């Protein structure tokens, strides 16, 4: 705990000045498009219905069990909001210590990351990574941590969260699964809103129910059905009006 308290916490100005600190350099005017059509509209629809993007807030994205697509949805929401609102600063925070993917996906250094800032003495501004979108930053989980569970539960984590809330217009937290990792509940408490990702046709309704029970009712913006697809052929759906 002593180590956590000693680690410096960057204020809003420090973060702004240092961005992008490490990682990708924007391509300038070069525009990168979605690799599949309709993806932007899809996530735009999600954040609109969730009421994201109008005020500064911290949004936690979680699921009942692992492998339901939390990171995909978090990423999609963060990228779309950053694209749609170039003047708004968006941060995607990775908190899954067990399966970190952000650094690999974006081709950036995995450390220092969130856990290094909480448990170590790394300044927070060094943990941010840039992206091809000027206003989208990433915070990989970093590590490896000796006791990652303790990191998320520390008071330092709450302090960092406050700092991020002040520095960014939207902070998207890619939280661990609610029924797998109890730290996720703590992250939900720190966030202003929560979105639950459910793998369509996979996650049992009972587990979804248990996960929803662990989220503050006022914070839950809704559920995103991921991997949703109907096995019924299109012509039959059109014929039956399904």
């Amino acid at each position: 705990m002593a180590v956590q308290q000693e680690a410096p916490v960057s204020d809003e100005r420090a973060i702004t000045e240092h961005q992008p600190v490490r990682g990708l350099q924007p391509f300038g005017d070069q525009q990168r498009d979605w690799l599949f059509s309709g993806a932007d509209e899809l996530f735009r629809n999600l954040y609109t219905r969730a009421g994201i993007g109008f005020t500064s807030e911290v949004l936690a994205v979680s699921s009942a069990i692992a492998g339901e697509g939390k990171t995909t949805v978090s990423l999609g929401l963060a990228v779309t909001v950053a694209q749609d609102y170039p003047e708004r600063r968006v941060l995607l925070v990775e908190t899954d210590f067990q399966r970190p993917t952000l650094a690999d996906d974006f081709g950036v250094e995995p450390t220092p990351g969130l856990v290094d800032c909480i448990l170590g003495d790394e300044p927070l501004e060094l943990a941010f990574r840039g992206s091809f979108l000027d206003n989208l930053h990433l915070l990989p989980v970093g590590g490896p941590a000796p006791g990652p569970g303790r990191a998320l539960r520390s008071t330092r984590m709450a302090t960092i969260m406050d700092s991020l809330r002040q520095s960014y217009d939207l902070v998207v937290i890619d939280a661990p699964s609610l029924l797998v990792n109890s730290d996720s509940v703590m992250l939900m408490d720190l966030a202003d809103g929560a979105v639950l990702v459910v793998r369509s046709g996979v996650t049992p309704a009972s587990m979804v129910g248990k996960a929803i029970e662990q989220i503050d009712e006022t914070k839950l913006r809704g559920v995103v059905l991921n991997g949703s697809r109907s096995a019924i052929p299109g012509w039959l759906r059109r014929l039956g009006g399904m």
Partner: protein
Amino acid sequence: MITKFLEAFFRHKILVLLPPLIIPLIVGPYALVTAPIYYESFAGVWVDRPTYLNYSDSFSVYSSPSSQQANKLQEIMRTRTFILDVAKRTTLAPLVGNPRGEERIAQVIGNGFTMFPNGDHLLVLHFKADNPRLAFDSLNAIMDAFKENAANERVNQASLAISFYQARLQTAQEELKKTSASVRQYVAANPNLKALNPDRAAAGDVALPQSVTDPQLAEMMATLQTQQKQVEAMTSNLNSAQFDASASLEGQELGFQIIDSPQIATAPTRALRKQLIFPIAGMVVDLGISLVLLVLLVAADRSVRSESDLPNGARVLGAVPYLKLNLRKLPKSARRDAMRRAVGFVAGTALPAPGGSK
């Protein structure tokens, strides 16, 4: 609910449809290979309406001769006597007299024989049996027995008719004889009528002035004439019956002519049609199993697929569809993350992230 069933059906279509497809494919060839073999003999018979006596009105003019004969043969085939008669003419003869043997005979002949009219006059007879000799003999025996049966029936009918008319004629002749004797006695007793010949008077060819004046004689003469006419009518009917009987017996040969005589089968035939019931039954049973399976799949599926499946009244913000990404271009290790990388491609560097479509 229908949507759930359809979803489950199309999601597990291979599982659901496999039994009704696979089982008949397994059962079908097995049933066909193990189908019992038999030998068939055919005969084509040209038939005409049975030339019964005139007194028989049992046949409708609206049905064809072949269907009439077929009906008659079909009826007679149901009798034990006829079946045993047929069996005695074949290699099944040793079985006659033994209850179990007769059961076997009824089974072999009852199941083996079929017929169908093929046109107004052509009747096709068909017999199948375990060996070619039995099929050939049985068919011949059936035809012979049927012909004999028909001939006997005609003889019996003719005899019955002839004896009936003979009895009636005899009665009429006796009555005529009595009346004639009474007239003679009356004439003998009356001297005024001695010139009268009762026999000629009965024939009505003699003028009888005396009878006109004698009412009793006139009545007796009228009775005599009536009875004489009855005797003549009976004689005519008897002659006609005797003629019809002989004509009927002679016409029998023409009314049942074997056009295609039976042949001994040289090659066996498989009872394929009967065996088809097994794959069809298999398919029907499997369809039932598939239906039960479908119900179980629907009942066992507790996963969330739509807003209505969500507990606690949670609302759905939206659905991220399953994307069919072209994963073949990716190494196997990268396929699991392909969707996420495709989403993050706008802001990230991680490549390759394949394109896809909804």
